[in-house]
């Protein structure tokens, strides 16, 4: 089995090898939804490391006679297992491959020690990964191959959180039945970020994509504490139909020590549009692709990454179904029971109550 699986070479048959999260990232990449670029260290790497360091026997010893109602005992023993995994040797071939892939990822953007997120992506036939979402570890702003290797081991170790371990014991599942894939993904470094709806949130118009955008990280937009620039793009024509540039008084930026900090913007920057027309259109295209992929109106988070070349720099951070208008149900033009074939009556009423006198907002 392959050790490294790049998102772009993912196919459906690999799902069991990479776990839910990595599978979804691979699927999105394949569907033209540009998630932050990266690769997965597959479960086969975990299996080899586990088997070569005789982990099963060690775990069996440590969990022998475990009383899952004794939280102190659980906590102590699980910590020991995690400690063991976090320091166990990785077979040399595998470690070399992970280092190689990490270097290659950085080389794609001409970056040495590219900061990455290292995330757990567990697989198991019986317990869906989702049950323990958030239980497994995620490490952000990891830089350098050494730290990446370390973080991979700690992700593996997070299979043995207290809760997950107790769950398996209680259900009688083999600890071997869960395996861990680790996702390594470039940290997004946004020039600008924000949200987009694949409909006009003011009237439910599905021909429009509404974009809110501000400088830097998207936190301010999502939390509603920055008044973002607002753009409307026709989904079919991909024309910008509306643009309101707001006074973006502050932004969230990356500091030298890899933290995100809120800073005031200069007046010039505050009133300058934070996206170019090409970027606006690319975000609209991305939102449209997401809507098609998921088959219903979407509410997405996106970022424009400064490290990526123009044309590949729009990144999808999250896509979820739009809820407000989708709940209301579709607004049809033809009312139930109305005939659609009577074009003369329709032409007469068009001439009588002319909609074409209205502006683009229907105002």
């Amino acid at each position, binding site marked *: 089995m392959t050790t490294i699986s790049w998102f772009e070479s993912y196919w459906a048959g690999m799902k069991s090898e990479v776990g839910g999260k990595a599978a979804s990232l691979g699927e999105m990449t394949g569907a033209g939804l540009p998630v932050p670029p990266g690769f997965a260290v597959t479960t086969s790497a975990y299996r080899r490391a586990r088997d070569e360091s005789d982990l099963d026997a060690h775990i069996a010893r440590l969990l022998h006679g475990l009383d899952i109602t004794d939280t102190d005992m659980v906590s102590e023993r699980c910590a020991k297992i995690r400690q063991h995994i976090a320091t166990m040797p990785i077979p040399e071939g595998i470690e070399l491959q992970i280092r190689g892939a990490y270097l290659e990822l950085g080389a794609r953007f001409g970056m040495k020690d590219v900061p990455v997120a290292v995330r757990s992506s567990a697989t198991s036939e019986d317990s869906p990964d989702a049950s323990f979402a958030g239980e497994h570890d995620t490490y952000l702003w990891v830089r350098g191959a050494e730290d990446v290797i370390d973080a991979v081991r700690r992700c593996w170790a997070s299979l043995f959180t207290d809760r997950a371990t107790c769950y398996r014991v209680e259900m009688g599942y083999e600890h071997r039945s869960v395996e861990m894939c680790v996702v390594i993904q470039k940290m997004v470094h946004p020039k600008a970020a924000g949200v987009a709806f694949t409909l006009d949130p003011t*009237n439910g118009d599905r021909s429009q994509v509404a974009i809110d955008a501000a400088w830097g990280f998207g936190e301010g937009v999502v939390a509603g504490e920055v008044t973002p620039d607002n753009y409307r793009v026709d989904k079919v024509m991909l024309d910008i139909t509306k643009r309101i540039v707001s006074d973006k008084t502050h932004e969230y930026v990356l500091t030298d020590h890899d933290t995100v900090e809120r800073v005031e913007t200069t007046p010039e920057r505050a009133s300058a549009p934070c996206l170019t027309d090409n970027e606006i259109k690319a975000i609209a295209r991305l939102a449209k692709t997401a809507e098609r992929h998921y088959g219903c109106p979407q509410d997405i988070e996106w970022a424009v990454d400064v490290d990526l070349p123009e044309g590949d720099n729009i990144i999808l951070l999250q896509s979820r179904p739009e809820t407000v208008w989708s709940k209301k149900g579709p607004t*049809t033009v033809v009312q139930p029971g109305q005939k*659609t074939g009577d074009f003369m009556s329709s032409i007469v009423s068009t001439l009588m109550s002319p909609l074409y006198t209205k502006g683009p907002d229907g105002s």
Partner: protein
Amino acid sequence: MAGFPLPSEITTPPGAEGWQELYSYSSTCSPARAAYEDSMFWFQDGVHWPKALLPWDASLMEVAIMALSQYNTRHLLVPPANGIDYRIVNGYTYLSPVPAPEADIPARAEQFMQRAGHYFMNWNELYDNWLVKIRDLVKEMEGISFDPLPDVEPLEVVTSGAGRGAGGDLQANYLKLLTCASTLWQYHFEFLNLGYAAYLDFFGFCKTAFPGISDLAIAKMVAGVEVDLFRPDEELKRLARMAVDTGITDAFKLGDVEGTCEALRAKGEAGQAWISSFQQSAEPWFNFSTGSGFSSQDKIWIEHVEIPFDFIKGYIDNLQKGDDIARPTEAISAERDRIVGEYAALLASDEDREAFNGKLGLARVVFPYVENHNFYVEHWSHSVIWRKMKDLGGIFAKEGFLEDPEDIFFMKRHEVPDALFDLYSAWAAPAQPAGPHYWPPIIAKRKEIHAALNAWKPTPALGTPPEVVTEPFTIMLWGITSDSIASWLGGGASDDGSLGGMAASPGVEEGLARVIFGPDQINEVQEGEILVAPLTAPSWAPIFGKIKATVTDTGGMMSHAAIVCREYGLPAVTGTGFATSTIKTGQRIRVDGSNGKVTILD
């Protein structure tokens, strides 16, 4: 609500005193009708008549408006809209839509359904018949000859027993030309407003389903791929390609048409073949006016072959640089299908999709007329009318009535029969006609007055505007909306100093402005500039390939200029009212064709 000056408040520009004498008594404002005139709202039609009318040219304006009114009011009974009243004010055309009485609307609607319904149900058949009718009419007009009166009638006139001669024919032929012009304009409006009505129905549906959809997107779904209005430009490209393919392009390096033709002939077969191919294209496709077709003064390609020659030269240059000048019809067609498919998929129900497809289908059936009639009527037929009138002018000039054949356009239409009578009876006697003493001073005075009228800047509207413009054809044909009226009242500039207009073709471009006032200045336009003009004509198409964007003073979303702009994918803002008087050549401007905004950046 603030308003415009009342018709009765408009004063005569200096030097134009007595201007009313240039036009028919019924077309100007009069004290007896002042109360009515001051109570109405009038807007200036600069789309068709951007300059002060010449006396005879006013005939085609009057007959066109009359035919429009006739169809709305007497033939089809368009439910809310009667015809259009018009006045010539200081030489410019002002129009005022006449609403149908509220109480009549239900009964009219019933009649309209039956009458218009017949056209919609039988559109293709009726339109095919229209194409036959219009070609027959052109042939009939071409067949009208205005020949100088002979010294002696030919023998066969006598021996055939016809019993009448050239003098009477001259009078009859003039009346025949007037009758043809009237028929022409009735044909024009036989279909036009119905075409717009079906278009508006689809338009209204789209705006209900997708409030944010642009006018352009709707236009693109309906627009035809093969359009006769683009045919003259296609012929230019074809001729350019032929010159390149047959290796005769160096003949076009010579400056003038004559030199080029001589060089072509010297090239033997290939050159000859090109010349005869040009002649074939010219009839009818180069019966193409450089203006709206409504002015006898606009140049027509076939009479000024240097114009198509220059354009062909430009296309030859493009081809030699390796540019692809072909209209990508397959791509245009595929793009149209994509747009339709995507909007249809976004509709909320299958019933909506069915209605959408039905309305789109009807709009596409009617739209070829909307797109093509302009060539047949305003360009081809009018070209023939202007030519015939110049022939007639030639007869008057020969007899000393006029100094120049084209001076005939300074006569009013009903003065021509009087002058013909003078000429005819003097020829018959023979005796001295009064004309040579009577007309030259009148024409000279009228030229002075006309020049003074041309120097006047017409106010965009007169009287008190309606609170909301709802008259469908005012909006479609002239692009006049509540917004544009508000912008005129504000002097054109909005709060941020930008000019507002119709978002006629989307996109944003910045560049240097080139302000031109007519087709004679087309050659001044440089690669990459932004064209600013009172209006553009379809025949300016060849320069659309080199400009970045277009701004016009007048025009609506369906004006012929807007159709061409969209075809060329150029951002355009039309109907700004004040662009040519506000913007100067060389200024940096930004044209936002998506939002109908023009900003001067300097």
